[in-house]
């Protein structure tokens, strides 16, 4: 019996993706993991050094700080962006006058590069230049808003700028989700006598779960890759109090010319992410195959 011929065109269409996955992703991961076991400095060399880079890495306070910062930043930024974006979307969904105008205003920061975002916020937050200075100029001589120069608070400035940047995207996703909700549900709840905010909390939020997940995925991509913003906004300082892993990797990779340690850090980051993501990715995308034909 004749067999169904293989559809080569399908594979041809997937070739770019396959090549990229194999060479750019998997190849890079293998290379990165490999180098992390050498004592490469400015240029990669194949001198095996065991786990020495990892030992050093976890003895480095800056690395631990940057991991801690990533967690703080990630949790706060995602939580605040989701909350703010959701609230904005809900507000915009109330048949508001100038909806299009407001939506654009909320969304536009997402078009700005992190470099620009960092630059502007650095000015605004700079106590000798921005808000603190201005408010003092109004006569409140003791007003203080100097988070950016305080070690304990600098990371929150990064959160602030990142929320400014990303809340609009969350708003767009949430608004899209809200627009897809059956309007009859709203009517049903009014007949049930449910207060609007309770309706949103108990009914709408659960329905928007997929939107929340999409937004979280997109935001967390930004968390892992957070670099430019920190660089421009705080330079990782004061001290290295607002350092983040990507900047740590970048610094050791180039400025400090210690590729070995940098790749060890990258590998650690990767393994952490892998452990955190795999179960979730599996649950979200693969367990329930969505399409039927």
């Amino acid at each position, binding site marked *: 019996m004749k067999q169904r011929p293989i559809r080569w065109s399908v594979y041809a269409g997937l070739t770019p993706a396959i090549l990229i996955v194999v060479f750019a992703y998997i190849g890079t991961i293998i290379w990165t993991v490999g180098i992390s076991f050498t004592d490469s400095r400015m240029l990669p060399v194949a001198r095996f050094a065991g786990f020495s880079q990892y030992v050093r890495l976890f003895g480095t306070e800056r690395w631990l700080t940057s991991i801690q910062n990533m967690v703080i930043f990630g949790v706060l930024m995602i939580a605040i962006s989701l909350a703010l974006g959701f609230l904005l979307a809900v507000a915009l969904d109330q048949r508001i006058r100038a909806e299009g105008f407001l939506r654009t205003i909320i969304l536009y920061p997402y078009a700005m590069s992190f470099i620009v975002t960092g630059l502007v916020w650095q000015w605004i937050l700079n106590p000798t230049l921005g808000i603190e200075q201005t408010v003092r100029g109004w006569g409140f001589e003791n007003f203080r808003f100097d988070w950016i120069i305080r070690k304990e608070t600098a990371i929150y400035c990064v959160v602030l700028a990142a929320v400014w940047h990303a809340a609009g995207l969350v708003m767009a996703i949430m608004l899209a989700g809200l627009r897809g909700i059956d309007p009859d549900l709203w009517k049903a709840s009014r007949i049930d*006598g449910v*207060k609007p905010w309770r309706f949103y909390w108990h009914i709408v939020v659960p329905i928007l779960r997929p939107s929340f997940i999409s937004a979280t995925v997109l935001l967390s991509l930004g968390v892992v890759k957070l670099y430019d913003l920190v660089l421009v906004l705080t330079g990782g300082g004061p001290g290295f109090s607002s350092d983040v892993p990507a900047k740590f990797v970048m610094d050791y990779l180039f400025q400090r010319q210690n590729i070995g340690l940098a790749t060890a850090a990258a590998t650690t980051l990767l393994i952490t992410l892998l452990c955190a993501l795999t179960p979730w990715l599996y649950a979200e995308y693969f367990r329930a195959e969505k399409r039927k034909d």
Partner: protein
Amino acid sequence: MSSVSIRNLQISFGVLNVLETLDLEVEEGEFLVLLGPSGCGKSTLLNAIAGLLDIAEGQIWIGGRNVTWSEPHERGIGMVFQSYALYPRLTVEGNLSFGLKMSGMPKAEIARRVSEAARILQLEPLLQRQPAQLSGGQRQRVAIGRALVRDAKVLLFDEPLSNLDAKLRTELRVEIKRLHKRLGSTMIFVTHDQVEALTLADRIAVMHKGVIQQLATPKEIYQRPVNRFVAGFVGSPQMNFLPGTLVRKDAGTSFRLADGSEIDLTAYEFSRPFHDRQEATLGLRPEQAQLRPSEQHSARLEATFTIEESMGPDTLLWGMLAGENFSMRISSDQAASIGAPTDIYVNIAQASLFDEAGDRL
């Protein structure tokens, strides 16, 4: 068990007047069906009764109270939507109790009411399921249950069956009817499906372009439609419309068709005066013509059929009569000749006549 009374209701969306000075009285315990084509304002009227719309003018009274400006949940109504609008991600029990919980009712009372509603609607085994795991019929029951737990005296239905397939529709129709018997509550049911309207209603209000055309029992609507719109909208296959002229004669009145054939109208009961040579349209339902003459079916006409559709108990014939499309319903045990001119016999006493404006003669 409250009456609903709508007086001089007017509703508009921007410049569009959807309802203008509409009056409607629904009696206690009545099952009223709002029937009409898409976009005629049925949902708008229902939403106004429920308090989900702002009213431009007019009043709404439920159970003797003027509720024109009351909040929806204060009106003693329950509503079942086309999509059922069950709260997703809440269990059946959660759906039933959600409104009560939010209004701060004591737990024991909630539990009592939920179990009572679940008993009436036979939802007990399903209480822990989520809406997505329910069949269409079960969903509808939950949606009704949501009204029951709130002790609603008036139930509003907005096309609750139109998303379902034919079989389920038939079943649920019967179920709603049974429920109406059991609960005795006032029900207002919106649909654009005339089978639903005919089978369910105590009275039907046929709507068109925001105006109630006829408000009467199903039988009357079917047999004595007040105008051509109602006649054409109710009944499937549609009523056949044959244009012609009224001719007064010595012996009485007859109706002359486009092909020159005439039918004696003696058996027809005119409701209004008419004049000789007036143009009119004869409306004949498919079952008001038969292949064989009988006591009632006496007026002979000639039709040519091209298609025969067997529908189980009866058969539909499709063809032409006096240059118009014509359909006829016969019993399955009869046989028609397809393609050749055929004599048919019409029950003129039950037919309808309409003047040029479309109103019943």
